[in-house]
């Protein structure tokens, strides 16, 4: 082929700038469409079972009825009602106390156990299994186990106190102790999961960095503080977000162990919502409280992501 004819052919193939942009846009569109098609199996249930019910709940929070009888618009009546309901403020407070205590305790214990399992690997599978088993136990069983532990007459805790010469405790009859029991039951249940999570994270910490720190003369605690913790931070913050979402929705253990008592001291937000929605058929108030819970979780999640984002930016 002569040079002239080759150039001519090349000219014919070359697109103008506008044509090139259009072709690029078409290509991106095709590619995005394909990606969206792949996402469709997720988006359909997301829209059907999450987005629509969430929006529907917001709408119903301005209505009376909606489950057993037709919804009737009542404006801000439900919102005014829950705003003056001291049980809701108490429930928010209880949930916050519970979440902070449960998250701090479970994370501390899980990190310690993960460090031990990471260091002493011989026979660690048995410990991993033993730690994970409570997570498989249904809430009813967890409740029963903790009822047996806390029983006044034959509970293990009171028998131990008795043997040590202390007075027995009316554990589920004291507001503070009852909430603490729920915290401990949930920590016991979640410990295995978080231990394995942190163990996996620890195993991703590059050995070379730890070796380098060791060569530089850093001791165990220093290596943990200066190398391990900073490298774990993204995983830790992700775990905090997940834990906040899960712990603000605590319900089953409350239901089985205390049913919100004694005197509302273990009444949590989901317990409050459940009672309003189903026990009393005050659906509007239940939905309004559910929207409050959604807002709290979204706000806390946003704060966590902001913190996580800031760290990432600094690292970048």
């Amino acid at each position, binding site marked *: 082929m002569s040079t002239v004819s080759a150039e001519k052919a090349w000219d014919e193939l070359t697109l103008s700038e506008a044509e090139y942009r259009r072709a690029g846009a078409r290509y991106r569109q095709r590619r995005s469409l394909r990606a969206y098609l792949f996402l469709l199996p997720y988006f359909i249930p997301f829209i059907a079972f999450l987005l629509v019910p969430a929006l529907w709940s917001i709408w119903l929070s301005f209505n009376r009825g909606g489950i057993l*009888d037709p919804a009737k618009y009542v404006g801000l009546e439900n919102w005014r009602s829950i705003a003056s309901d001291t049980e809701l403020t108490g429930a928010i407070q209880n949930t916050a106390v519970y979440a902070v205590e449960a998250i701090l305790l479970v994370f501390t214990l899980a990190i310690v156990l993960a460090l031990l399992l990471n260091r002493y690997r011989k026979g660690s599978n048995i410990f991993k299994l033993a730690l994970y088993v409570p997570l498989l136990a249904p809430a009813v069983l967890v409740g029963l186990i903790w009822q047996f532990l806390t029983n006044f007459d034959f509970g293990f805790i009171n028998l131990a106190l008795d043997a040590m010469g202390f007075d027995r405790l009316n554990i589920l009859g004291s507001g503070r102790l009852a909430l603490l029991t729920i915290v401990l039951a949930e920590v016991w249940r979640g410990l295995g999961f978080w231990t394995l999570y942190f163990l996996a994270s620890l195993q991703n910490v590059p050995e070379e960095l730890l070796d380098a720190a060791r060569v530089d003369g850093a001791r165990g605690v220093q290596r943990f503080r200066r190398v391990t913790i900073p490298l774990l931070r993204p995983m830790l913050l992700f775990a905090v977000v997940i834990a906040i979402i899960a712990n603000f929705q605590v319900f089953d253990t409350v239901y089985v162990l205390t049913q919100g008592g004694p*005197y509302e001291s273990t009444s949590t937000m989901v317990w409050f919502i459940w009672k309003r929605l189903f*026990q009393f058929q005050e659906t509007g108030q239940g939905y309004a409280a559910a929207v409050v819970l959604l807002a709290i979780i979204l706000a806390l999640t946003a704060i966590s992501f902001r913190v996580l984002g800031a760290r990432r930016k600094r690292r970048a």
Partner: protein
Amino acid sequence: MDESVDRNQDALPADGDQPGESRREFLKKAAVVGLSLPAAGALVSSASARPSMLIRDRARSRYEGVTLQFAKAPFGTDEKDVIAKLLKPFTAKTGIKVQHTVVPWNTEGASYATNYAGPHPYDVSYQTSTDLTGLGTKGVLEVLNNSKWLYSPAYKGTAAKFIPNTIKKSIYQGKLYGLPCIIGGTVMFYNKDLLDKAGVTKIPTNTTELAAAAQKVSSAPNVWGFQVPMTDKDFTWYFHYHAIHNLGGDIISKDQKRVLFNTTPVMRATQVSVDLILKDKVQPPVGQYDREAGVALFKGGRIAFLHDEPLRLTVFRSEGLPFKWDFVNPVGAPNGKRTIFSTTGHWVMASKSANKAAAWELVKFLSSPAFANEFGAHYGWAPVRSDVNTAKGDAQVARVNKYVLKGWDGLPTGPKMAQLTSVYGQAIEAAATGSKSVADAMAKAQADGTRILKS
């Protein structure tokens, strides 16, 4: 004889209700009866057997293949078996099969709400006066006090047998959403051996005497003088409501427009209960034992007086408690009344039921002596109809009935009653745990109750 007539009337559709049979079906049945009669003639001496056979066949042909969904929170662990046994004649006569779902007490509100929201709700269920009107006013229950059901020509005679107050207390704004079936009542069991040992010779009749007797017996934490459910989850309000009535008060005004939690009778009655725990220390602290644990303590000989429902009678008798025991009606107020409180139980029909006629047959049967005599006797409930006799020669149940029917003062039904009684229960719990004084607890209950009535 009278009883069997009533039983037949209730158990089977009245003649007037029968749908017309086709000529062909009638001739077929007549031929069958005609052919079988000579052969059966030697065995059947009375021609009176024929009408009942016909009625049975008619009822069967009308409802053959119908299965009703039936739900109830149980009075005991054996209830499903008891009901299945008692329903056998109903199914045999009508052909209606009944599928029974046990709904746990503490989740009944949630279970019924979700079920009635669906397209195929329980055709027939059991509702107490607290939940009855809440569901009824939302349109999910059939209104029964009309000429189609309760006052239908075929049922009018039976309707007149209901104790008027049970119907009256179950009506809200002119509508009756369920047919009363039992009056629960509460009783006070006592351990005779413990009382003898402590030198208590007179069974207390009022709260002052109860406190004194309980103090004599109590040697906490091994033996407690008294036990009654004190938490909202154990329906504490149910066991305290009569004490307010004994002092001439109530938790709600007659027109149901005002709550009366901060009135003297409510506060005085609550204070008496709270004092038994916090001042006299004759009752275990709140949370130490729940209702079932309290009953277990009584069975173990560690409670002198137990305030509970008469349904424990069957259990105590069948288990054979290792001490002498008996029961009386709950104590009254000093210089006041001695009433018995209970909610009434009701059989209800779903307004969305696809088989309303069959559901009505079941409701009628459940209310009839054929079912209610034995069911009431088994759980110690007092009857709501003059032709129902739950005692059947049982002296203890006869006493329960006597107490209840003489001193019963029922809770009026209303759409917010479940919430209001829970508010009252929470207030009792707050005061009994020492979290609030009785006055503060009732002031909060008053504010909460007022808000609930307005919403």
